[in-house]
């Protein structure tokens, strides 16, 4: 029997179909063109972004909302270099991503050919792994490996670079073999001895804190976390990447700790005698100066990535394993024990009462972001997917939005990538056409990728965008106010600001504006009633507001700045 001959390009499309990829995001170009030809005939949906960075963030948003692989396609040279930011972003936030890039013909590689960039080299430090295909017959196997590497262990981005001649090379379908990756064997099952040691520490702790993050969401173990925390009465802090892993509003939920965390969450760690850290990496935005971080606490640190354990803080009990297995193991090992945490929980309850998050919305004053957020959440009945930019608005959302389910809070935590929100929201809405997807963005961030609004209109992706228009790189302004004598160097956006309403309209979206308290309900209601196209609200807010609490970078979490008054002590 002679094999049917197909091209490398067809092998890519067929492999993606075999790997159950239903949607890809991308921008075509010379080197990747052969792949776009069979893609046109495939049931896979391709969403044409306006910029490869946008396409990358869309794939990330898709992956973060679903927990599944996101796929992005770009051409060689500038297409690939434009992908570096989303790749680095996905690496930092452990998002499973597959990037397929075209490359100049293998005969031209190294000759500075037109649109040649050393994509494998450029992306090496921004990916979990990458490949250069040297023969079309490798494609099915490599793509199978790439998906496995991207989605297993600690998830991350994998890039596959394919020269144009290989896309055109004719070969037969090669059924991928079982995976053989001798250097890649993620440890999923925790060592039972370590689980036992951890359980022993927990049993004797009076002030335990479950310090949990993105690992809970990646391992889909929010239920197991809930069981552990509620069965044994252990308070929980959820990091920026872990918001939604444990429901806000639950009496054990202390929400976000750290630089802009709430007082109780940050302080609970400082006062704790035992940190049960699961799927977190002791990021500097949580720890501030690690020398002053949780000085009285022993540490149990569980992570699927052994390199995270002991990187920042020594762990008395290191546990390598999948968060789900760790949580199940701990719950099991603690069976029958009753922790003596009642007075600890009581202290924390008091603390919450005494140090609430607050804001001051005057009836006739400028809009405050926290107020606007609360109003919006009150009006949304279903659990929305909230996608944020980077800056003050991001911190306010994390502080004030009530997250009760995993995968409903998408943001760029590790890299802090401005421009993430709008395209990531498009990706999330693509995965869930019927869900309410909110891109809650800053005006600075929005201007970095706003062209993707056209993608949303063209593709009938009815995201709702709220641009918090404070006319400033607000977070930069806040730092300049505190640390640079209010010298607002290059942080003002007001001199030439786009008319966001007109901008939205020119891009096929509905544009609305709110400027005062009376507008909020009306305009949001109007927004929520539009479901056939994207909507954008120009939400004009106080240009001079600041996010509190705050612990300055490198400071001690024992010294939390609660308000403007406290700043004077600096």
């Amino acid at each position, binding site marked *: 029997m002679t094999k049917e001959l197909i091209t490398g390009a067809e092998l890519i499309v067929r492999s993606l179909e075999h790997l159950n990829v239903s949607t890809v995001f991308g921008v075509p170009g010379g080197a990747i063109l052969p792949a776009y030809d069979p893609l046109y005939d495939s049931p896979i949906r391709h969403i044409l972004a306006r910029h490869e960075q946008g396409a990358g963030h869309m794939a990330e948003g898709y992956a973060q909302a679903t927990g599944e692989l996101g796929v992005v396609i770009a051409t060689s040279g500038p297409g690939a270099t434009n992908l570096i930011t989303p790749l680095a972003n996905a690496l930092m936030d452990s998002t499973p991503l597959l990037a397929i890039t075209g490359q100049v013909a293998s005969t031209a590689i190294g000759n500075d050919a037109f649109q040649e960039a050393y994509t494998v080299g450029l992306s090496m*430090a921004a990916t*979990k792994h990458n490949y250069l295909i040297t023969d079309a017959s490798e494609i099915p196997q490599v793509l199978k490996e790439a998906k496995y590497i991207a989605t297993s262990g600690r998830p991350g981005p994998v890039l596959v670079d394919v020269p144009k001649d290989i896309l055109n090379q004719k070969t037969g379908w090669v059924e991928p073999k079982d995976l053989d990756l*001798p250097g890649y064997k993620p440890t999923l099952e925790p060592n039972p001895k370590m689980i036992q040691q951890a359980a022993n520490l927990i049993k004797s702790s009076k002030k335990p804190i479950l310090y949990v993050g993105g690992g809970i969401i990646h391992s889909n173990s929010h239920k197991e976390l809930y069981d552990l925390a509620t069965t044994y009465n252990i308070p929980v802090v959820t990091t920026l990447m872990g918001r939604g892993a444990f429901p806000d509003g639950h009496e054990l939920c202390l929400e976000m700790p750290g630089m802009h965390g709430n007082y109780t969450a940050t302080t609970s760690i400082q006062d704790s005698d035992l940190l049960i850290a699961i799927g977190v990496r002791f990021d500097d935005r949580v720890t501030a100066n690690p020398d002053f971080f949780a000085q009285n606490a022993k540490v149990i640190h569980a992570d699927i990535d052994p390199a995270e354990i002991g*990187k920042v803080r020594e762990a008395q009990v290191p546990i390598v394993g999948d968060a789900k297995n760790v949580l199940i193991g701990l719950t099991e090992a603690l069976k029958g024990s009753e922790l003596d945490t009642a007075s600890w929980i009581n202290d924390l309850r008091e603390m919450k009462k005494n140090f609430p998050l607050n804001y001051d919305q005057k009836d006739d004053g400028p809009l405050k972001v926290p107020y606007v957020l609360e109003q919006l959440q009150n009006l949304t009945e279903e659990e929305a997917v909230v996608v944020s930019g980077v800056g003050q608005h991001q911190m306010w959302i994390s502080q004030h939005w009530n997250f009760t389910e995993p995968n409903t809070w998408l943001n760029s935590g590790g890299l802090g990538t401005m421009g993430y929100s709008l395209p990531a929201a498009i990706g999330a809405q693509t995965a869930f056409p019927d869900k309410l997807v909110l891109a809650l963005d800053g005006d600075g961030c929005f201007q970095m990728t706003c062209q993707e609004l056209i993608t949303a209109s063209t593709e009938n992706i009815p995201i709702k965008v709220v641009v918090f228009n404070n006319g400033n790189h607000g977070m930069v302004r806040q730092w300049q106010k505190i640390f640079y004598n209010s010298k607002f160097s290059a942080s003002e956006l007001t001199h030439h600001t786009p008319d966001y309403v007109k901008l939205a309209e020119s891009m096929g979206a509905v544009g609305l504006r709110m400027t005062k308290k009376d507008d909020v309900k009306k305009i949001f209601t109007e927004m929520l009633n539009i479901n056939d196209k994207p909507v954008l609200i120009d939400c004009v807010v106080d240009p001079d507001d600041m996010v509190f609490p705050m612990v300055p970078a490198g400071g001690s979490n024992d010294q939390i700045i609660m308000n403007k008054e406290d700043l004077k002590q600096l």
Partner: protein
Amino acid sequence: MSERILSVLVEDKPGVLARVSSTISRRGFNINSLSVGPTHIEGRSKMTIVTELDAVEQVKKQLNKLVNVIKIVELDPEMTIETEVLLLKVSINKDTQTSVIEKANLSSAKSVDVGQDYAIFEMTGSSKELNKFEKLMKPFGIIEMVRGGRIAIQSNL
């Protein structure tokens, strides 16, 4: 700080050297010596990396994350056989020729090429021995010297 020797078994795949060295330099660590070569197993190479770091644990963990890195063993200096190779070109003349060759012989360096005004020696041994030989040759005028490829093996694995 003392030297640490890592013996790293890797898949013989394109780019693996770049991945390993960039992982190390990305975390801000220096490499004193790095050598790569084939092993007796097909498709597997061995890297010997000599570094001076306190944070060797972190480097090991980061290297272990590389998909092409199969196994990392930190060699115990007490039980390690280590060798390095040197090629040294030194000036000679009628007056110094005998003395240079005598010193080389005593150091068990092998002369591989002798011309009218130069001699080239090859030597393998510990870094210390090679240092010593270099010092011996210095007064005669070293024209060029190449060293490298520190490799190591554990004596009873």
